[in-house]
Each structure stands twice: as structure tokens, then as C-alpha cells.
């Protein structure tokens, strides 16, 4: 019960702070809240857009969580999803003649593989060369951004568009969009994401490999002493993390745009960190947290049009405040700690 309460309180606090900011800007908080609610859930289309934003967040949230269970901080989901989407788009544009059942499968595998490789690099560097994954994943984010711009602007430029994007993929690649959402691009990527969440749960809690991943994350010395090759496990975990993030490309390229657009992701990779955090790195929690952030993303986008004083920037502040209060996990334990005596119970059982 307490496990549930804390994230809910954190979200409420963030939302309250955000509304306070809009209030200072001159909007009635109640009005803002109503627009948020309507923007995210008001109609079939609105809810569809919320789900459309939710889908990539499930993948990136899972990506961050899997790495986290192995004791790694994957800040590279953004880069991994970028190369994943690019790979799907490149395959679809180059072999545009491929037809239905095979084509999307090939593109999904391409996205998976590209993300996996992008995760494997920092995983290998950490495991075998000891260089920190935080630095390397950030660097790879930049490399991914540069690489995709190059491909989209020079190698596979869309001749029919002024925008930085690749040629459209073949029609055989497009995946099913659900009709009930009034035209919002909710595609088969959403059930794929939910399936991924279920598989991640099975992996972590029901398999030997998952146990080894968690053991390494809990205590590397203990895992090592038990004969687990911590380096190998870390590489595997980063491959999985990269692959999961890479699957973001499925919804975007095959289910929505039909091509790779530079800058399509409003930092899904980084919001994924907040999603994992709020979902406590548990697949079920991540599904819920992704839905929340998806709704927030959709709702705040509408604030811009529907109010006088709240601009795009202010709505970003609102989102950021929620993320901030979610991330302030330490704040909660600190507040609990303060009610305790001088020094918390440390090393209680060590000496006596």
C-alpha cells in the first residue's frame, strides 16, 4: 500500500506545483486542470493521442528499468530509439517492394537489432573496459543524432519534402492502426509494448538469466562469488535495454509517419527515466507511469492553444515539475529520516 502511495503523492505534488506556476502566470488552476483532463481523455481521438505517446514511453521505461536492475543507468535510450527508428526506416525505404507479413517483421527486427547494438557498445565498454555507461550512453546519443541527420539529409533524403526526413517506406511495411481512436495513430505497436512489458516481467522474475541480472545489480561481489560473470550479464542487460528502446521505431515509422523524421522524439528516452522511476522499475508500474506521462504530454500540448497565458514553454515546466517531484525519491526518505534520531540505523547487525 505504501509502495503505491508514494508515487501517487509525488505526482500530486508535482501537479500542484505546476498548477501553482500557471496560476502565477494568470490562469485559473481549475481551468488548466480541466483542459489537461479534456486534452488527454476528452474524446476518442484525444485518448488515442495519449496512447500514441504512451507507447514509446513504455519501451523506454522498460529499457531504463532492465538496465537499472543490472545496476546500470541507461541514459542512452534516446540514442537507441533513434537508431532503431532509423534502421526500420532505412530497411523500409531500401527494400520498399517487400510485402505485408514479412515486411513489418523484417523492419521490427532491424529496429531491435540497431537498438541492441547501440546498447551493446556502452555495455561492452563498461564490462570489459570499465568506462562508465552514463558517459558512453550520452556520447552515443550525440553520435546517433549526427548519424541519423546524415542519413536523412544525404543518403536517403526524401525528394518530395523540404523537411529533414528519409524517403517513405514501402506500403507493405505499414502496420495496423486501430480505427476506434478517431484517426489517432494508435498502431499494433501498443500491444507490442504491452507484450514487451509482460516478457520483461517473466524474464526478470521467472528465469535464471533474470535472476542473474538482478543479482549483479544488487551486489556485484556476491554475484561474482556465486560464479556469475558480472561483465557478461551487464552486456546482456544493455543489449536488452537497447533493443527495447529501439522498438520505439516500430510505432513511429511503421505505425505513424511511414518514414524517419529527424527530431521526431520529444525526448522519449529521457522521459523514460522518469517513467521507470515512477513505476519503480516494475513492468506493471511502468505501464501505469507511461500512461500518466503520455496523458501529461498530450494534455499540456493542448494548453498552448486553449489558454491565453500558458505557452508551450510553461506546459513544459508543468511536465518537468512532475518529473522532478517523482525523481525526488531521496526527499521522501530524507523526510522520513528527519523524524528519526540522530544517526539512522546503520550497520546494525555488523558488530554486535
Amino acid at each position, binding site marked *: 500500500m505504501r509502495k503505491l502511495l508514494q508515487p501517487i503523492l509525488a505526482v500530486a505534488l508535482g501537479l500542484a506545483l505546476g498548477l501553482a506556476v500557471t496560476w502565477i502566470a494568470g490562469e485559473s488552476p481549475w481551468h488548466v486542470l480541466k483542459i489537461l483532463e479534456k486534452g488527454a481523455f476528452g474524446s476518442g481521438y484525444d485518448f488515442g493521442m495519449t496512447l500514441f505517446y504512451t507507447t514509446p514511453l513504455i519501451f523506454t521505461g522498460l529499457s531504463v528499468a532492465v538496465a537499472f536492475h543490472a545496476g546500470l543507468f541507461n541514459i542512452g535510450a534516446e540514442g537507441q530509439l533513434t537508431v532503431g527508428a532509423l534502421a526500420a526506416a532505412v530497411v523500409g525505404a531500401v527494400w520498399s517492394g517487400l510485402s505485408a507479413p514479412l515486411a513489418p517483421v523484417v523492419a521490427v527486427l532491424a529496429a531491435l537489432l540497431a537498438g541492441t547494438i547501440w546498447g551493446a557498445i556502452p555495455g561492452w565498454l563498461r564490462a570489459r573496459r570499465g568506462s562508465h555507461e552514463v558517459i558512453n550512453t550520452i556520447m552515443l546519443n550525440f553520435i546517433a543524432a549526427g548519424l541519423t541527420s546524415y542519413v536523412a539529409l544525404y543518403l536517403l533524403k526524401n525528394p518530395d519534402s523540404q523537411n529533414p526526413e528519409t524517403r517513405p517506406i514501402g506500403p507493405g511495411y505499414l502496420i495496423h492502426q486501430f480505427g476506434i481512436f478517431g484517426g489517432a495513430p494508435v498502431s499494433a505497436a501498443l500491444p507490442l509494448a504491452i507484450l514487451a512489458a509482460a516478457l520483461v516481467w517473466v524474464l526478470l522474475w*521467472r*528465469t*535464471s*538469466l533474470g*535472476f*542473474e541480472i*538482478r*543479482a549483479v545489480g*544488487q*551486489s556485484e*561481489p*556476491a*554475484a*561474482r*562469488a*556465486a*560464479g*556469475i*560473470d558480472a561483465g557478461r550479464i551487464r552486456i546482456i542487460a544493455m543489449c536488452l535495454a537497447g533493443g527495447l528502446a529501439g522498438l520505439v521505431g516500430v510505432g513511429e515509422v511503421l505505425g505513424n509517419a511511414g518514414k524517419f523524421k529527424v527530431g521526431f522524439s520529444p525526448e522519449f528516452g529521457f522521459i523514460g527515466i522518469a517513467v521507470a522511476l515512477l513505476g519503480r522499475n516494475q513492468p506493471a508500474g511502468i505501464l501505469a507511469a507511461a500512461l500518466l506521462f503520455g496523458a501529461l504530454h498530450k494534455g499540456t500540448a493542448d494548453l498552448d492553444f486553449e489558454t491565453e497565458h500558458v505557452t508551450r514553454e510553461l506546459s513544459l515546466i508543468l511536465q518537468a515539475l512532475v518529473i522532478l517531484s517523482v525523481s525526488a525519491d531521496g526527499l521522501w526518505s530524507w523526510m522520513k529520516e528527519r523524524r528519526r*534520531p*540522530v*544517526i539512522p*540505523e546503520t550497520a*546494525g*547487525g*555488523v*558488530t*554486535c
Partner: protein
Amino acid sequence: MDSSQIVDDTTAAVELRALSKQFGGVRANADVNLRVERGTIHGVIGENGAGKSTAMKILYGIYRPDAGEIFVGGKKCVWASPSDAIAMGIGMVHQHFMLAGPYSALDNILLGAEPVRWGFIERKKARERLESLARQYGLPVEWDRPVEQLPVGIQQRIEILKLLYRHSNILILDEPTSVLTPQETSDLFANLKKLRDEGKTIVIITHKLKEVMSFTDRVTVFRAGKVTGEVETSRTNPQELANLMVGRKVVLSIDVPPARPRPETAIEVQGLSLAGPSGSRHKLSDVSFSVKRGEIVGVAGVEGNGQSELLQALLHPRESRCRTAGPVRYLANDVTVWDAAKIRDLGVAVIPEDRQSEGLLLERPVSENFLLGLQRSDAFSRAGFLRLRNLEKTATLAVEEYDVRPRGLMNTAGQLSGGNQQKLIVAREFQRQPQVLIAAQPTRGVDVGAIEFIHNRIVRARDEGAGVLLVSSELDEILTLADRILVLYEGRVVAEFQRADVSERELGLKMGGG
């Protein structure tokens, strides 16, 4: 009790009255009464988690009691933090010393209590005072050497001088002998006696009955958060103290029948060497030995003489940076380039040196800790999936058989007391039906009752044909269990004995490099 009564007529140096302290749901101290007379050495003993450290930490101001009172020199005291306790003349030497390695002995003592004048530290004046203190109590120290270059015994002396420099009259020492050689230990106690005779009051927290018997004046025994006895040392005996600690009759030293070694070799190492950081001495030099199946070979030595490095080389031969003159062999397999998982699969059980970091996942439940290392065994996995029902069944039985308390499989390992953590590790490792057992400090910090249990298990494994390598800094443990004894000193095997041929004194001398 009447709280307006500030000054009590007691003459005790310290008195704790009806002290209670709770952590979460656990009662660490319940109605603890403890009286330490002025000018005595007072032993505080008890099993792990019996509450002795908690009581001392309350006295030192680290914890605040939920209920109860503290009197120092007859005055009722309420601490807000340790600095209040220090101001009243109470000092504590922690089990792990609080010294800044690269600083000189002098600077370490001054650190935090620098005599400052016009913004400058008056080193000369401080040094004069310290030198006179050192003379008075017979505690000579080289003031200008970085403490990391000094032996552990001297480091401890510096910790004690630190307290004296801060005008402490009541010195609390937490497990002071755990890192000392037998010779250093007797030096320490000689010094403590001198301090006592100069009028200081000394409280020693320990679990070693022998030390309590030979060096203290009075003893307070803790069990399960309560004081179960306070006795004059001269009127008691180790057996009585052990019974008070455990609450039942315990066998202090088990009777180990002689081994019948088999011809097959369990572990064989030839010429193992490990260079230290450039310029320093070798961590291991030319270590060779073998362990037959059906015998226990003890590696004696003061901690930090190469035991950790030896264990790493044995468990991770591929990754250790050791040079060997010959292959590392387990049960006639050359494992020099094997990884740890493959070695463990031969039937190699390991009780690691540091159970909290190497042995357990402290935040995970007992069941998962029981699985650690066995997650790919046929018993607990099939086609990559865990067989959780099997795990639960087997773990429930094992927890029962090895008497891990509390019994629940869902408690996290970190919630168990030290002794129970160790029993959990033993239960898990014996699940492998070991052909080879490497046990490092298997009973460190473990209570008397559990020591007996673990020792019996190790002997049983030997009698069932396992080759056992026992690494321990407890001489008594080595002398009780080992059939053959190697002494490790500064990374070398400096002596080898049959158990029957060696006295404790002789071993102690070899351990100290004599």
C-alpha cells in the same frame, strides 16, 4: 523514578537505567540496566544482535534511547549527539578505525580538536602534551609517520591516544582485538590495565570469552536485547558466561576426531605469486600447498597477510593477476583458465570472507539468497526458467535443518542477524554436496551457538570426503578444526604444522612473523 532527582548518590562511572530502544519492529534493547564502576575494565559480551552495541551506542550518544536514563559520574545526562558524550569524558574506539591514512599520527590525533591560535595550529604545544600523555600511559608512537604505514596495533594505540588527548575518562572499545595478533592483543590488554590503574574506566565490547576471562574485572552479558547477568569475572567461568549468552547449555569446543585423508587431491596450488602495487612488497609470494579429500587444512594468520588475495586466486584463477609456477587444480582438473561458474560446478562450496558483500543479496528475500549460485542447477531451473516451487520446498527444508531464524523465506537477508546470515550461506553452499569446501572466516561475528553448529557441519563435510580449506584469523578455530595448519605471513607460507605438533603460543609467534 523521580525525574527531578538530578544528582544521584551513585559512585559508578557509568550507569544505564531501564534503557529501551526499538528499531522499526525490533526491540534492540529492553529494560537494560548496566553499571560500570570507576577504575575497572568492564566486559560487555553477547551474541550478534543481542543489543550490546546498541546499548554502547546509546551511551556514546549515537542513538537516543526510547526510554531510560544515563548517569555519568552520578549525573543524569541526555545526549543530543556524540559530542555531548565526549564533553562528559566518554570516548569510543570503533571496530574499524577512524583514521586518515596518509596523515601523520600527530595530525590524526589533532584532527577535529586542533589547538588553534591566530588561525594557526599549535602543533608544538600539542605535541608536548601528547608526548607527556604517551609517557604517562606507556603508549609510544612515531608521531610523524603516516598512519597507513604503521602496524594495526599502533593504529589502535593512536585511536586510544586520541581519546586521552580529548580528556576521556571512560573508554569504550568495540571488538578491539579482531584485527590483532595474539602478541598485539596481550600488549593491548597490558596497556589497558595500565590505563585502569591510572584511574581510567574501560568498557570492552567483545564476543571472545577468553579475553573477557583474562582481562576484565566485571562482565555484563546481553541476550536478545536484555541483560541476562552481571558478574565479577573472578567468580565466573567461560561455560557459565556462554550459557548466559545463549540461554542454554553450549558445547564450547567440539571434539573433532582425527581425519582420514584420502589419496585424491582436492585443491592443489603451486608457486602462487601476486605482485603488489609497484615498489611495495608482494601480496603473495610462492604459495604452494595441497588439500587432500577428507582433511581440513587451516590457513592461520592475522588478517591482511594475503588471505583475501589467496581466496580470490582460488575462486577466480582466470581473472586474478597471479603468476603461478604450476596449474591450479581442483579434483585433478586444471582450472587455471576456468571461470568461477565452471569451478563451482565441480562441487566447490564457498563460505566467503565477507558474508555481507560477497555472500548475500542483503535487500533480497531469503529464498533468492538460497538460490544465488544455484540458479542454473537442475534442481532449480529447467530450460532457463526458474522452478520456484522446488526452490520454495527445498529452501523451507534447509532453513529448518540449518536453523535459520526467523524461518520465513520472504524476510530479506539484511534483516537476519549475523549468525543467521552465516547459517543461510552454509545451508546454501552445502546444497551443492561439496567435494571441496573453501571456508573463509566461517564464524566471524557469529554467536556461540551458531559457531558450534557451523563447526560440526564443516567436520561432517570432511568426513563425507570433502577437502576443506579453512582460512581463519581465529586461532582457536584453526586449532579445533584443522588437521594440518599453514601459517600465512606477509603473503608467504612461513610454517606448516600437524595439529598435534603445535602449541597456541608457537602458532601465535609464527603469525606475528617470529
